[in-house]
């Protein structure tokens, strides 16, 4: 799924060349504008990679009325500008499209970044109908995505100049992580997260809105939401998990103390990286499980190279991989956290309930 479109400016987003007409700046290309608007409505981010001075990007913002989540203006290789956009937004090459009228530039980006979808502006009219530009669910969080990335830039800027530890920065930025049971209103966003998250997703498979809705009604199943905000802005629902507190086969006669919590899905938006969210969620799960008499928490996790960040978080929180199944595609391993080992307390900026 494409999460970001990276635009060239001259003869692509602009109908003309910015520096060639200093007295009369070029108008917007009508076909490009239409696509820019349509894709923004679907929650797809917009960015700029252009051989122009930075003021050309300010002009593009003014001209289109759209905010750009990342702007790379300069005279280096286009692939370097595209890589810089990906790094700034925390995206993988396969999650970006690059649009440029210059065939040489397209070839260079294709060669260096083969996973980026490289497009000719002449194909633009078809783009909105392509499935990789059509997220199945578009939520409020999705539509506000561009704005949220601007808040992220302000946050990163301040973090760079902040002298203290990460924990101190999160505290002084007024970070609030709110962990609460999901309601029916949350199911669309949870389904969207299950599709969009990869780096922090234990299951590696989509979960539909209907499945989440069904789980809310089932005894022994819990769906948990995590919301995040700070003084820079409100990111809304950024993560969640499904917890099975009682296995389906367990009979009423078995004692509650024998129970082990399983977490068939654990996921977090990459927008929340570095803000204490995944650690808070794992700690909360363990503390709650222990409080309700569980001896251990098990997170089955698909072993792929995309979710390495989640596995780093799991082992950092005291989880250990169980017996590995034979190698193969999409194998899953149980990461186990015995609750007899000490647990850290939740930071005071985590609110529950």
């Amino acid at each position, binding site marked *: 799924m494409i999460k970001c479109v990276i635009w060239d400016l001259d003869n692509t987003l602009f109908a003309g060349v910015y520096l060639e007409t200093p007295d009369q700046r070029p108008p917007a290309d009508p076909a490009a504008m239409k696509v820019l608007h349509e894709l923004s409505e679907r929650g797809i981010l917009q960015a700029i990679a252009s051989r122009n001075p930075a003021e050309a990007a300010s002009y593009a913002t003014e001209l289109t009325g759209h905010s750009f989540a990342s702007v790379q203006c300069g005279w280096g290789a286009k692939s370097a500008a595209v890589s810089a956009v990906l790094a700034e937004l925390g995206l993988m090459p396969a999650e970006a499209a690059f649009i440029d009228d210059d065939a040489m530039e397209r070839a260079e980006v294709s060669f260096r970044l083969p996973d980026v979808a490289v497009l000719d502006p002449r194909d633009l009219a078809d783009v909105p109908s392509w499935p990789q530009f059509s997220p199945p669910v578009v939520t409020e969080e999705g539509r506000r995505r561009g704005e949220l990335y601007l808040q992220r830039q302000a946050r990163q800027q301040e973090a760079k100049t902040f002298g203290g530890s990460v924990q101190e920065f999160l505290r002084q930025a007024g970070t609030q992580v709110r962990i609460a049971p999901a309601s029916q209103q949350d199911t669309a966003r949870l389904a969207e997260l299950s599709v969009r998250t990869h*780096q922090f997703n234990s299951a590696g498979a989509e979960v539909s809105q209907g499945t989440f809705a069904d789980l809310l009604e089932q005894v022994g199943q819990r769906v948990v939401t995590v919301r995040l905000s700070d003084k820079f802005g409100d990111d809304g629902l950024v993560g969640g998990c499904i917890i099975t507190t009682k296995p389906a086969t367990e009979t009423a006669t078995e004692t509650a103390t024998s129970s082990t919590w399983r977490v068939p899905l654990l996921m977090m938006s990459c927008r929340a990286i570095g803000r204490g969210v995944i650690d808070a969620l794992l700690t909360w799960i363990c503390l709650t499980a222990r409080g309700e008499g569980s001896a251990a928490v098990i997170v089955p996790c698909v072993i792929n*190279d995309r979710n390495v960040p989640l596995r780093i978080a799991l082992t950092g929180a005291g989880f250990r991989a169980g017996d590995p199944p034979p190698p193969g595609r999409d194998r899953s391993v149980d990461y186990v956290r015995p609750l007899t080992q000490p647990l850290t307390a939740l930071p005071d900026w985590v609110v529950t309930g």
Partner: protein
Amino acid sequence: MSAEETAVELRRLLAELTSDDRALTAPQDTPLLRAGLGLDSLGGALLLKRVRAQFGVDVADEDLNLDCLATIGTLAAFVAIRRESR
């Protein structure tokens, strides 16, 4: 490639990823993540991708607990052993 050469190459890679030459000379027991060389979880993931490309060792697949991400020395040793064993 000897274990020492592997370690030197790995340190070069770390210096590049962290934009910090400290990785070239830091003690073997310097942690890679967080307060050590300062890699976060995404940085750790990127490091493992580069290690696979450069040394042909798929750490993310072979070390499920990612214990070898503990320090410069543990990762260098893991990569060197896996390279030798083939």
